[in-house]
């Protein structure tokens, strides 16, 4: 009896050994191994999965058109060959012919219409409806005019319709596959797009494997397989590249880059990206935060240069308020209110003195380094605020739900603007129906709502710019809702024999299709 029991104990171990996948097949396709911090549970472009999802989705899905970074204000055709304005609120997209989805279907206007349709996006209970508020808000409907023409109709006249369709949530998906999946979760794990790579295997917490899409309409990538391996420990990722078992180690904090200094096998790549860190100010939960002087003081007390030097090696820049270079002509460069990046502790104290604030604790709940340097930045800010007499209490939690249920006076964000050539995304945050003003209701301003309508309702650049100036002034100074900290820089470590440059945006992100050895 005794031996039997003991033998039984050994069986699972033998079984376990037998179950492990063996080494990869000898005739290896050209594989690119990328070490990442985590992977998302699914590959769905309109699902907010953060930067780790964007990496994968960026190789699988494409938009109708892309931003042309070389010539500001222009767009590159991708899935749409050309497009034409029908009227102030309507644009027709003429699709490229012969584009094949990963499942063999041909791209038609039906797919485009479905991508932005009620089931997926527009209905109140649609799974990706959240993206509406942030990115695709003005869309009223998209319909198929004919097989290769899709018509996008906005709620009202809108000067930036084309730009809207360059964003990540506007990537085109396959209608048939979505419907066949049965549930949104199932679709996420078996999604179908038009991009150079298709989804072969998605094991949450472990890896995502993408295979070359044989029938891809565009230039064939060099690597036939992309393997995103989850390696949570940064040090191990770097070691993997140095040792040669990885080609790329993604998202390396600045202070770790010196591991490859002077090494021949690996080098650091990357730099600034179209993303900025900012601080939201909420007056929803705490009456104290209604005080304008307090909120101004919060912004004035911050020494942004110091943060970028200390935590980021000086790489990021300090933006001119809630603006970015690709806004082009819409950029406000002449302010009649203090520059958003002003560091003036004395003025901060003067503002405080006029307020009713008497040192009560303000609440800031944040996640534990979901963003790189999140906690360190927060601690630095708390000290800077303390120096002028503002008391902020930090609470670090595990997940976003806990952040959202906590009383919130201050909240940090990492906002990517993807080189959007217009201030429109700001309205997606603070304007009518916006993320901050409507969905979370941290802050809302009737004047901004009205100005937003003005800005988006006109095509006259002068009118728009005037409206934008006043919006900017309100959200930065008159009724502060937010202040920008700095832009972000993203770095990776790659094998030296790999020719590759990552994009400087979240969308597209890594451009692995362009990598070659």
């Amino acid at each position, binding site marked *: *009896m*005794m031996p039997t*029991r*003991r033998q039984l104990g050994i069986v*699972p*171990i033998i*079984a*376990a*050994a037998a*179950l*492990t*996948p*063996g*080494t990869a097949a000898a005739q290896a396709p050209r594989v690119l191994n990328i*070490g990442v911090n985590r992977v998302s*549970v*699914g590959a769905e472009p309109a699902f*907010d999965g953060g930067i780790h999802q964007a990496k994968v989705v960026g190789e699988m899905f494409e938009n109708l058109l892309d931003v042309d970074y070389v010539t500001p204000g222009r767009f590159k055709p991708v899935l749409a060959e050309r497009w034409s304005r029908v009227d102030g609120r309507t644009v027709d997209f003429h699709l490229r012919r012969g584009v094949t989805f990963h499942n063999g279907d041909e791209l038609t206007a039906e797919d485009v219409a479905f991508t932005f349709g009620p089931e997926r996006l527009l209905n*109140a*209970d649609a799974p990706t*409806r*959240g*993206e509406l*508020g*942030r990115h695709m808000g003005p869309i009223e409907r998209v319909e198929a005019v004919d097989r290769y023409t899709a018509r996008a109709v906005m709620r009202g006249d809108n000067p930036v319709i084309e730009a809207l369709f360059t964003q990540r949530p506007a990537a085109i998906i396959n209608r048939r596959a979505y419907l066949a999946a049965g*549930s*949104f*979760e*199932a679709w*996420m*794990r078996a999604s179908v797009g038009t991009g150079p790579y298709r989804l072969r295997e998605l*094991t*949450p*917490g*472990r890896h995502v494997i993408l295979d070359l899409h044989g029938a891809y309409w565009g230039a064939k990538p060099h690597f036939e397989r992309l393997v995103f*391996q*989850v*390696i*949570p*420990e940064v*040090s*191990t*990722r770097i*070691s*993997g590249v*140095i*040792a*040669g*078992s*990885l080609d790329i180690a993604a998202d390396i904090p600045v202070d770790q880059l010196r591991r490859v200094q002077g090494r021949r096998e690996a080098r650091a790549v990357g730099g600034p990206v179209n993303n900025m860190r900012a601080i939201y100010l909420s007056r929803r939960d705490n009456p104290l935060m209604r005080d304008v002087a307090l909120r101004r003081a919060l912004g004035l007390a911050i020494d942004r240069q110091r943060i970028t030097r200390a935590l980021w090696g000086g790489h990021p820049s300090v933006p001119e308020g809630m603006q970015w270079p690709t806004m082009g002509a819409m950029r406000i460069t002449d302010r009649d209110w203090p520059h958003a990046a002003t560091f003036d502790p004395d003025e901060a104290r003067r503002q405080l003195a006029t307020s009713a604030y008497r040192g009560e604790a303000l609440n800031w709940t944040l996640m534990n380094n979901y963003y790189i340097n999140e906690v360190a930045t927060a601690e630095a800010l708390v000290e800077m605020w303390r120096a002028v007499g503002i008391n902020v209490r930090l609470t670090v939690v*595990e*997940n*976003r*739900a*806990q952040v*959202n*249920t906590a009383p919130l006076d201050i909240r940090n964000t990492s906002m990517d603007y993807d080189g959007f050539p217009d201030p429109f995304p700001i309205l997606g945050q603070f304007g009518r129906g916006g*993320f901050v003003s409507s*969905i*979370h209701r941290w802050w809302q301003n009737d004047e901004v709502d009205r100005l937003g309508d003005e800005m988006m309702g006109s095509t006259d650049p002068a009118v728009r710019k005037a409206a934008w100036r006043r919006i900017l002034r309100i959200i930065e100074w008159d009724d502060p809702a937010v202040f920008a900290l700095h832009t972000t820089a993203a770095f990776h470590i790659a094998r030296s024999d790999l020719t590759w440059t990552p994009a400087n945006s979240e969308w597209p992100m890594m451009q692995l299709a362009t990598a070659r050895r």
Partner: protein
Amino acid sequence: MNGAWMAAKLLRAAATLLLAVTVVFIVLRLAGDPAEILFGDNVGEESLIRYRALWGLDQPLGVQYLLYLRSLLLGDFGLSSQSGASAWQLMMGRLPYTLQLGGVSLLLAVLIGIPAGVAAALARGSLTDRVVMLAAVSSFCIPNFVLGVVLILVFAEQFGWLPSHGTGGIWHLVLPALTLGTGWAGVLARFARSAMLEVLGQPYIRGARASGLTEGRVRWRHALPNAAIPLVTILGFMVGGLVAGAIVTESIFAWPGVGRLLVDSVKLRDLAVVQAIVLMVAATMVAANLVVDVLSAWLNPRLPAATGA
């Protein structure tokens, strides 16, 4: 071993499992809404409501509990709220890796720790003894993450002899198993030494020597089997720690085991997965203790179960 004894043990095991799952069930639901975590910031309330209904989270706690128990008895462990995959599949996909890592680590720990402890006991007071004990204490004082990273730096990066992460062959197991097993080896060495010393001080050891038995026979046929008795109990505890103890090692080496899955699932309040894993861990502990009981009875005829009387 008789049937009544086994039956009693199995009943107790089932009660333990039920208690474990119930506690986890209640605690998880008290902190954090899975739907919000899944969908993040910018989702409207309506989507959240729909998803809560889908997952049955809008029902009273007692109802959810009974439904869960019922599905358990039918063998249905539920779906992951994060990915929609079957919780059972998710866990079983990772379990072989945990077993591999845990099994090899335990084996390493036993093969290194016990002989070291025995050697130290036999050479008590000498330099060997002190060196071994120093090594043992250091090994369980050095944190996993330090040891793991150092091993990677030296063996993977510097010399390139061993892979630094992932799975794929026996060599991938070496560094993670060393990282995990070293601490346990140190613990086992300490216990083996003290167990051996205690046994060596017993009158029957002197009696065996006095009978003219060779020193080797006294040590290996008389002392060691008796010293093994408390060690078996400790090994039972270690087996239970197989899953949870490997979390850090799994993170460092990107080893796709259950430990990391558990931590991620708890953070994301992926209830079905957490419950499935807790059940599995509890079952492992219970099974390990059963094996320990049986082994102990076999090794130590003084225990009542052995006689069946």
